[in-house]
């Protein structure tokens, strides 16, 4: 059956949400009309541009750029701190509005949604419905969106990227040669900084050239990703719109430290702090992990990662922390660090698990301790019980993550 998919993308999401909230609370200036950015806290070294206004874009300010560099380009730049709870509220409002049209709404990221409109448009064409959604977002919620319409998620997403802001575009399969193929290949979804140089070497510069390239040649150079890109260039994508939570493949938390960490003691405290957060999340989902990975970034911004498969899956903070410590010790060469991450994967349910011959009462007692600590933290706040090691250390007892329910960007449709 022919499907009709909409992709709704909020224009300069963080910034326009901040602007609308400020206007609602009596601000005299619309932040969208002046050079402004939403940026992290520079004191704790999270100082990068998260979102920018269109006037800021004219100063060549880019998302991900450090704030001091953005200020050099535009001395009058207005910098706002991010307020993630507001963004979740705005994102929920958008999802609720979309659900008035179809129950099949998938939140792809905090500011993007897919919606399957097939069979859900009465008395109106799909284009009219899309236009109505766009207008209602502006009138009722105060921020503008781009809406892309097509027969699958990939084309709908490509359509919403065409011209911004506050626009509606169609990209049906018969429009691909005219609208999609002339675009540079870097505009294609999943054509990233590592793929592009390979495609350029193959003399592929436009999406059309990629669509007409030999799939065998692409597979030879880019493995299975080459075939995916070739399919995308030809507008082939059969992924369904999946409302609700996706199956979790891994859980991870990372943090940038406010100071350079040059000794093992502080590094271990950061690993413990991250493991506390990530293990608590793991237990909250009722899961156990088989693989532990530790990532670090030094002051030269070099990135290192090391992982190991555990003998038995676990969700015990101490057990995972000891493994993280071991991985870190094997990997670290003594250079000052500014970023730590702990990631758990190969997740399994915690109803049944393989026990180890070496498991004893001590491990079981640790698990019941974890459970008690989680209960206390959930009912009285994450700071209700902390480990003594963090006292006067200047390191937060639980770190990583901005908000528990903050939806992250995904790389799969």
């Amino acid at each position, binding site marked *: 059956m022919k499907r009709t998919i909409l992709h709704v993308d909020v224009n300069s999401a963080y910034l326009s949400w901040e602007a609308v*909230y400020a*206007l609602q609370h009596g601000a005299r200036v619309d932040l969208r009309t002046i050079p402004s950015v939403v940026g992290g806290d520079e004191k704790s070294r999270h100082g990068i541009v998260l979102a920018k206004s269109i006037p800021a874009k004219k100063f060549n300010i880019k998302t991900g750029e450090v704030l001091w560099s953005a200020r050099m380009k535009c001395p009058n730049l207005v910098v706002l701190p991010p307020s993630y709870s507001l963004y979740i509220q705005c994102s929920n409002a958008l999802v609720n509005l979309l659900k008035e049209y179809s129950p099949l709404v998938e939140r792809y990221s905090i500011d993007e949604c897919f919606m399957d409109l097939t069979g859900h448009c009465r008395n109106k064409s799909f284009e009219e419905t899309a236009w109505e959604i766009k207008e209602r977002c502006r009138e009722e*919620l105060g921020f503008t969106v781009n809406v892309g319409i097509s027969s699958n998620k990939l084309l709908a997403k490509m359509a919403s990227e065409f011209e911004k802001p506050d626009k509606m575009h169609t990209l049906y399969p018969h429009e691909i040669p005219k609208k999609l193929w002339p675009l540079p290949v870097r505009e294609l979804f999943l054509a990233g900084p590592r793929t592009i140089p390979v495609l350029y070497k193959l003399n592929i510069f436009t999406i059309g050239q990629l669509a007409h390239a030999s799939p065998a040649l692409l597979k030879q150079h880019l493995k299975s990703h080459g075939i995916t890109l070739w399919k995308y260039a030809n507008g082939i994508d059969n992924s369904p719109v999946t409302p609700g939570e996706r199956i979790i493949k891994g859980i991870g938390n990372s943090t940038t430290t406010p100071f350079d960490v040059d000794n093992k003691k502080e590094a271990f405290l950061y690993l413990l702090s991250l493991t506390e957060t990530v293990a608590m999340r793991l237990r909250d989902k009722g899961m156990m992990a088989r693989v532990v990975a530790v990532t670090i970034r030094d002051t030269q911004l070099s990135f290192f990662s090391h992982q190991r498969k555990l003998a038995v899956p676990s969700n015990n903070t101490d057990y995972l922390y000891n493994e993280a410590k071991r991985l870190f010790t094997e990997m670290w060469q003594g250079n000052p660090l500014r970023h730590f991450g702990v990631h758990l994967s190969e997740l399994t349910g915690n109803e049944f698990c393989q026990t180890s011959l070496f498991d004893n009462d001590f491990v079981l007692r640790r698990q019941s301790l974890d459970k008690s600590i989680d209960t206390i933290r959930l009912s009285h706040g994450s700071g209700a019980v902390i480990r003594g090691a963090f006292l006067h250390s200047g390191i937060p007892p639980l770190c990583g993550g901005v908000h528990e329910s903050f939806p992250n960007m995904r790389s799969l449709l």
Partner: protein
Amino acid sequence: MKVIMRSVDMICCTSKEGVITPIKFRITDENKEYKIIRIDKILSRDEEKLAGNRMLVFKVQSVINNCEWLFEMKYEFSTCKWFLYKI
């Protein structure tokens, strides 16, 4: 009208149907003294949900110092705060 957006202390009535009606509020003047303003007439009552934040917006009329004034009041559901929005 000029945007003021100042939070105020409000006495309001919530009917058994759940309809909120502002009655009178107090606000500090430039001498930091409280001034009580009674709302004489509600001209319109709207709901906005800009940025997903629900607010009631009242266009109201009052007599202040023998002079009739039109102004707008806002009630924010998430914080239960009242604001003198525009005057």
